[in-house]
């Protein structure tokens, strides 16, 4: 089902992930978050931006275990743990944050 943002329509797959990640914009992430009752703050954006950079470098949406480890390495132990990430993204930091970031569903997330 497509998502409408600022008069533009964005194609998604059946699970709500953006079909073409090159079309991603910040307002789309905000709109997706709103549907999940989340208001994006700086802490959310930090992870979303991290994921977009990660995808650019490795061409994969990391599984939650790998995301946690990678965040810990880059942003410190206080952020690289599941408690912190689940508080920000209660439906799963892998799945939900990747969705907001315009990435596909994480590989290895079953």
């Amino acid at each position: 089902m497509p998502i409408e943002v600022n008069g533009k329509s964005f194609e998604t797959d059946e699970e709500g992930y953006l079909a073409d990640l090159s079309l991603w914009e910040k307002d789309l992430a905000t709109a997706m978050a709103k549907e999940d009752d989340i208001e994006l703050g700086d802490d959310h954006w930090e992870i979303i931006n991290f994921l977009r950079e990660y995808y650019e470098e490795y061409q994969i949406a990391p599984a939650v275990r790998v995301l946690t480890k990678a965040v810990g390495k880059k942003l410190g132990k206080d952020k690289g743990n599941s408690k912190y990430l689940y508080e920000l993204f209660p439906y799963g930091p892998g799945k939900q944050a990747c969705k907001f970031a315009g990435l596909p569903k994480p590989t290895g997330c079953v």
Partner: protein
Amino acid sequence: MEDELESGVVKKFLYVNRRAPHGTVYAHEALEVVLIGAAFEQDVSLAFIDDGVFQLKKEQDTSEIYTKNFSKIYAALEMYDVEKLYVDKDSLESRGLTENDLSVDVKVIDSKEMTKLIVDSEVIFNF
């Protein structure tokens, strides 16, 4: 096998890659399976034999053939605890390549060592 995976039994997994990237879907599919399989925390090794060694060639850029540049994924394997990459020496040499042409850290091994790797494995996937 599923029961054993869930009970925490660790087996020696070997993924054998023998196809060149891009022309067929084998190389990319193998990576997908490796990444998904990594969730089961097994003892994983990857072997690159024949044209499979081309998968690891440095500086692949698919922008002009309009496909996903999955060669970047090999660098992420380490984060999935997939750290044992073995390259067949004969295959590398007969294709005019050296270890310096490869994008990630690997162990180049001879036929005898490759034979042992295969024989010692418990579960083998072929691509």
